[in-house]
């Protein structure tokens, strides 16, 4: 016996040391089921190559039939599933065997596992309907199994693989042609709640795969809403929602009466009812889904906010109604009197319905729920519904305002954001504004900033409201001086939205007096600046306002216009010459003068062909300077201006480099000048990366131009290297690489090539056959001439272009107190920064710390450290851990933010899917061609630190 086994191992080793062989030997050696299980577990930890999968499967199956122990068979079954997931392996060859194993299996657990394996196999073969049909047939056969686990898996399998198109079903006749929906629907009444859940899930799965569910299951689903088990109810709510989206307009009867209503309304009522379910999981589910039922009729929608109050059977008004009444009767802010809320009229006892089956008060309940998850879901749903219905938005306002005082910050934040989103549809009443403004004192910065954001886009109805808002904002400013920027910005929008309401307040705000001169306020007072920002922005569309200003106000205007240009708009002031007023009559009203300026200057640049080289250079220099200045003045055009300026800068560098005299002289003599040309090439490369990755809104048209510029820079690099290096050997490699790049450029942007007539690449591609065959020196020569002759490409501007910017708020870099810590240990530095127009900040933004000794540290902030307070804006609040060996005296380190990029990020979106079943495969090799780099995009901040030597 022993000998025989030895023999077999030897034999296998001779052929090939394959995985399957080793496994086979191991399994043969196993004396007990426990042993075999151990071997299998070990085996599962190692990856299996695609070629040997089939062999391994065969061996496993062989052992499967021999094995008596159910646990080992179970493990084998699960291994089969994992193996068939292996990338590149097509499992149809093992399908028959897998199906055969089902036949004689007695253990329910193993059966369930085998069905799971079949499911994996089925999902791996999406283009094979007959295989799927067969699997579904197998599953249908096992649906009568007495174990819930098996039935569960069967339903799952049918849900995932069941035929979606009717045509396919006809092809394969027999039983499988039976309607899968009916098969699944029959299990809605299964005795086991897990199977019921699985049945509903399978139905939802079918829906997701594109099968149109029949309306007949609606009544079945409604019955499931009253199920005893929460998973079932939760799934049923989903199913009802799906049906309501599919058949919103069908008519369903109301039981116990002969009325009929739209299905979507009925479903809405039912889901609303689930908002007061016993299980919070169901409540969250229901509340979430309510938000997406926009087709519901407004009558039902408004009921959700309705809760008839009564006290001792007498009708009572809600606090909201009272507040509204007080407001409309004009006596706001009366103190509460005893009995103010005394109930009024008697209620007819018969008419009171304590548990409405309809939508009544669903949101009132949801917003008052015990679990914050439910409350958040309710707020989100309110938001979505209010966005689509202005009248509902008006009604839900009171409730949202109430949520500003929730005990959980997340809920408060969410409701503030929600309010911002619907603010187009609403005007705040004074009492509501009062409650909103009260939150400005919140100690959480997130809340305050969200509120500022909200105030930026709210409509206020009265001048008292504006005054109130200003007073509260100033209070906020004194309490939290760090909010300065945010408050100013808020007032800017408040002013420009309500010019007529600000007008009557101006004398009071500026404390001017008709007869007396008042003392000039302090120009550096943030509160005073805040008031001025409000007034100047209002004055922009209110020409009568400047008449109310006193002399120093004008002076302050000039100062602020220059120092805080993003907050103070240009004004037409009497007796002052302004750039805009001089130009304004000539331009068309809808075109912004600065925008026009931008286009004009670009126009000029693109037509420079006829100029002499010197003139071109000068023109470029001027234009770049103009554009940069324009970007500083006009924040909305900054992205555009910077982008073009960078591009022109690149072009300027290229021209300069090409005009070097060195090209005419023998190479080795001009090493110094070469430095200039190669530096230019390097800088152009850097700039092109910036252009590609630092701006949001860059379209493919621009990407081509950028890549083209990069190609030119690389050509330049090649030429320079060729001139300075002796010997031809290194040049071979470089040339080849360059040609490859030209090739890949052509492949990537083939569609754009027609637009690039006369450009460098255009000419290059014409010469391509020649280039491939010629020697490096030839190539360089050709490149040089092409580079000189090629025309300057016109850079089309996209609609929206924004430059990614970052601003580190904290640390401020002003502290003289060094941060002391013991060397070798770590100290946490709080970093707070705002990011604008950064796409996917979680993946790209890094923090860099530079120590005085040149050591640099790169920190990846956690995804949770990024908040998203508004579109295009992000906030990074994180902690950076610093550590260093001991220093003798405190020194400054630099902290800055970097934008990481990967040059093939845009193309290489198809990553190799990670194989999940073995860890060793996860360490993928880094993608080959990607050039990874970082762009610093914030001003560095200096932090004083002092690592002390550890005391012994």
């Amino acid at each position: 016996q022993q000998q025989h086994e030895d023999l077999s191992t030897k034999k296998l080793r001779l052929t090939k040391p394959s995985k399957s062989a080793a496994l086979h030997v191991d399994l043969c050696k196993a004396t007990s089921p426990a042993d075999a299980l151990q071997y299998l577990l070990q085996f599962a930890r190692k990856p299996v190559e695609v070629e040997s999968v089939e062999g391994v499967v065969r061996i496993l199956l062989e052992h499967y039939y021999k094995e008596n122990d159910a646990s080992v068979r179970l493990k084998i079954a699960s291994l089969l599933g994992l193996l068939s997931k292996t990338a590149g392996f097509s499992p149809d060859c093992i399908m028959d065997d897998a199906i055969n194993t089902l036949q004689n299996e007695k253990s329910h657990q193993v059966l369930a596992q085998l069905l799971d394996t079949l499911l994996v196999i089925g999902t791996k073969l999406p283009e094979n309907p007959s295989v799927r049909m067969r699997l579904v047939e197998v599953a249908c056969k096992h649906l009568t199994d007495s174990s819930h686990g098996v039935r569960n898996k069967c339903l799952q399998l049918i849900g995932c693989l069941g035929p979606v198109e009717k045509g396919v079903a006809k092809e394969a006749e027999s039983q499988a042609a039976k309607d899968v929906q009916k098969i699944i629907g029959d299990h809605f009444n299964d005795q086991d709640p897990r199977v019921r859940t699985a049945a509903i899930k399978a139905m939802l799965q079918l829906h997701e795969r594109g099968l149109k569910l029949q309306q007949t299951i609606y009544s079945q689903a409604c019955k499931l809403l009253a199920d005893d088990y929460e998973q079932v109810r939760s799934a049923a709510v989903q199913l009802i929602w799906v049906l309501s989206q599919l058949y919103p307009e069908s008519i369903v009867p109301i039981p116990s009466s002969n009325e009929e209503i739209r299905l979507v309304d009925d479903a809405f009522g039912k889901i609303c009812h689930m908002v007061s379910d016993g299980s919070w999981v169901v409540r969250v589910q229901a509340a979430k889904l309510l938000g997406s039922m926009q087709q519901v009729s407004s009558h039902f929608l408004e009921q959700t906010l309705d809760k008839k109050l009564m006290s001792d059977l007498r009708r009572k008004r809600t606090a909201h109604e009272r507040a509204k009444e007080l407001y409309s009767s004009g006596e706001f802010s009366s103190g509460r009197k005893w009995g103010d809320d005394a109930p009024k009229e008697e209620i007819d006892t018969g008419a009171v319905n304590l548990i409405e089956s309809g939508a009544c008060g669903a949101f009132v309940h949801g917003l008052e729920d015990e679990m914050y998850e439910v409350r958040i879901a309710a707020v989100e749903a309110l938001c979505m519904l209010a966005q689509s219905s202005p009248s509902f938005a008006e009604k839900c306002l009171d409730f949202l305002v109430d949520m500003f005082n929730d005990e959980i910050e997340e809920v408060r934040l969410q409701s503030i954001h929600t309010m911002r989103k619907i603010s187009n549809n609403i005007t705040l009443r004074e009492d509501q504004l009062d409650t909103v403004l009260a939150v400005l004192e919140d100690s959480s910065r997130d809340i305050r900033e969200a509120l500022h954001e909200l105030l930026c886009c709210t409509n206020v109805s009265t001048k008292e409201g504006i005054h109130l808002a200003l007073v509260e904002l100033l209070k906020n400013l004194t309490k939290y001086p760090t909010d300065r920027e945010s408050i100013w910005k808020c007032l800017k929008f408040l002013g420009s939205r309500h010019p007529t309401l600000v007008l009557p307040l101006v004398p009071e705000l500026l404390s001017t007096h008709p007869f007396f001169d008042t003392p000039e306020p302090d120009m550096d007072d943030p509160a005073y600046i805040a008031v001025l920002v409000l007034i100047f922005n209002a004055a922009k569309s209110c020409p009568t306002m400047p008449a109310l200003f006193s002399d120093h106000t004008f002076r302050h205007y000039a100062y602020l216009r220059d120092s805080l240009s993003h907050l103070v708009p240009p004004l037409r002031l009497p007796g002052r010459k302004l750039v805009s007023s001089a130009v304004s009559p000539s331009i068309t009203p809808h075109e912004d003068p600065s925008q026009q300026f931008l286009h004009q200057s670009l126009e000029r640049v693109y037509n420079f062909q006829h100029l002499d080289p010197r003139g071109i250079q000068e023109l470029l220099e001027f234009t770049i300077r103009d554009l940069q200045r324009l970007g500083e003045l006009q924040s909305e055009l900054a992205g555009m201006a910077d982008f073009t300026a960078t591009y022109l800068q690149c072009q300027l560098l290229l021209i300069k480099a090409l005009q070097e005299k060195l090209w005419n002289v023998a190479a080795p003599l001009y090493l110094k000048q070469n430095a200039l040309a190669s530096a230019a090439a390097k800088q152009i490369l850097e700039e092109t990366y910036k252009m590609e990755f630092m701006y949001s809104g860059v379209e493919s048209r621009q990407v081509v131009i950028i890549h083209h510029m990069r190609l030119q820079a690389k050509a330049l690099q090649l030429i320079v290297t060729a001139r300075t290096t002796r010997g031809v050997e290194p040049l071979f490699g470089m040339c080849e690489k360059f040609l490859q790049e030209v090739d890949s450029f052509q492949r990537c942007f083939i569609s754009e090539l027609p637009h690039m007539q006369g450009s460098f690449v255009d000419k290059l591609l014409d010469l391509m056959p020649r280039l491939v065959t010629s020697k490096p020196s030839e190539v360089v020569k050709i490149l040089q001439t092409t580079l000189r002759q090629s025309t300057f490409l016109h850079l089309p501007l996209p609609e929206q272009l924004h430059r990614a910017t970052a601003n580190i708020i904290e640390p401020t870099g002003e502290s003289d107190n060094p941060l002391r810590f013991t060397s070798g240990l770590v100290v946490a530095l709080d970093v707070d920064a705002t990011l604008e127009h950064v796409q996917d900040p979680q993946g790209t933004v890094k923090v860099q710390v530079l120590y005085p000794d040149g050591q640099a540290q790169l920190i990846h902030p956690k995804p949770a450290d990024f908040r998203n307070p508004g579109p295009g804006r992000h906030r990074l609040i994180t902690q950076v851990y610093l550590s260093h060996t001991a220093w003798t005296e405190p020194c400054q380190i630099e902290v800055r933010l970097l934008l990481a990029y990967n040059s093939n990020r845009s193309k290489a979106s198809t990553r190799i899917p990670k194989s999940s079943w073995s860890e060793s495969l996860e360490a993928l090799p880094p993608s080959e061609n990607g050039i990874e780099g970082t762009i610093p995009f914030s001003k560095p901040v200096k932090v004083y630190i002092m690592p002390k030597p550890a005391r012994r």
Partner: protein
Amino acid sequence: FPAVRLCSGAGQDVGRSCVLVSIAGKNVMLDCGMHMGYNDDRRFPDFSYITQNGRLTDFLDCVIISHFHLDHCGALPYFSEMVGYDGPIYMTHPTKAICPILLEDYRKITVDKKGETNFFTSQMIKDCMKKVVAVHLHQTVQVDEELEIKAYYAGHVLGAAMFQIKVGCESVVYTGDYNMTPDRHLGAAWIEKCRPDLLITESTYATTIRDSKRCRERDFLKKVHETVERGGKVLIPVFALGRAQELCILLETFWERMNLKAPIYFSTGLTEKANHYYKLFITWTNQKIRKTFVQRNMFEFKHIKAFDRAFADNPGPMVVFATPGMLHAGQSLQIFRKWAGNEKNMVIMPGYCVQGTVGHKILSGQRKLEMEGRQILEVKMQVEYMSFSAHADAKGIMQLIRQAEPRNVLLVHGEAKKMEFLKQKIEQEFHVSCFMPANGETTTILTNPCIPVDISLGLLKRETAIGPLPDAKKPKLMHGTLLMKDNSFRLVSPEQALKELGLAEHQLRFTCRVHIQDPRKEHETVLRVYNHLKGILKDYSVQHLPDGSITVESILIQATAHSEDQGTKVLLVSWTYQDEELGSYLTSLLKKGLPQSTP
């Protein structure tokens, strides 16, 4: 059947909660409260009502206390020590901890201050507490072999619970006081879909639907904030336990959020002890407190400090919580007198005030109060009323009924007139019968008790194998023999029953003659019958035997010609008792005659 007897109190009345439940032979007393309004015998329930002769311990199987309010547990020491009861008393852990403090306080006031005699002593409270068994939420406690109880969360106050009492398959749920809307420190009541035979629910707010809590909270905070900003002082008279903690949390978090600096004080004594228990029983509080207590226990107040009498004269703004809640005596009244003269100050009454108290007077708008010694106190400070109540409103009660799905509902702890309305609503909307007994009245509720029967595994498997898949939701018909032996029920197969009882088996056979008009020969008739049956009974095995008879399963059919009329054939159908169903079907089928055959 469970019979519910209401021991005096708690019927159509608030106070003195005490319900006696007899369920399947077990007697359980629910709550043992006192009435605040009386100072004589009427303050305690009439325990002689429970049993005339014999000791209480023998009659009652257990006592359950739902929460620590005195109208639910105030009579406990009297009941257990003075009347005499030695059986188990069940309550939740927080209730067990806080209950003696309140009882002791109550005793002090009655005995030490009012000088009453014949009242329970401190030692009695201690002894009584020794009989208490503490239970956890959702823990099933086996009181004896048949009786089990289970506690559910009820909100209301710390440690308040609803109890399910179960004997066999009959069950009763007693809610005590509960709250369906969460507040700042407690969650909402919750019960599983346990479908009890009877739900005994409180109905304090039977005719009220309340507004959202948020508006009230916001109003409260705004008032306090404004007054403090003005530099005024705020007095909030409270009772030591329950609402006081909620308001403390409310103010504490608000102070924290808004970064306010004005001091908040809490009058000392009882409260400190109570706060200690709130800190301990974090699991009984709401989501927010439970989730954040790892960082900081919300009841470890940062801004709220202990009050000293001298602080009342300090300048500057402050907020003071002082007991008692109705401004009728003690510290709250003292502070009120000091501050009443200043219009910058404010008093907020967070609850209901009994007529005759200072609280009630100022709430009804009286501005000049006559104090002791004929002194007139002019009230210039602002007076505010905020109601913070922790009972379920009508909607809440309905919601609980929906959650539990009881077969019957019984209303206690409320006013008769209001109950009437709720009763009508419950009957109308849930279609269950609803009761509202008066004090001392007994209500009997019929139940459908199920009787468990043992079945042998072999028989069960054999029976379930027949017919379609078992469906747990639907009753299934099974055949077997019911054996009643030694006070137990067993379902066994007939063979086994025969064996056990030593009886011989008799076979019962039915025969039936069916006349058919058919002029043909016998065997032809038989063939026709055979074809006919074969065509109809597809799922059964129909055989034509060589001796000229037909069998359908085990049923035999033979045809003979009628002795007188050859045109009439007589079909003899014979089946055993076991095949009765099929047999009678066959006869009725044959009686309809054969289809006109086409030759």
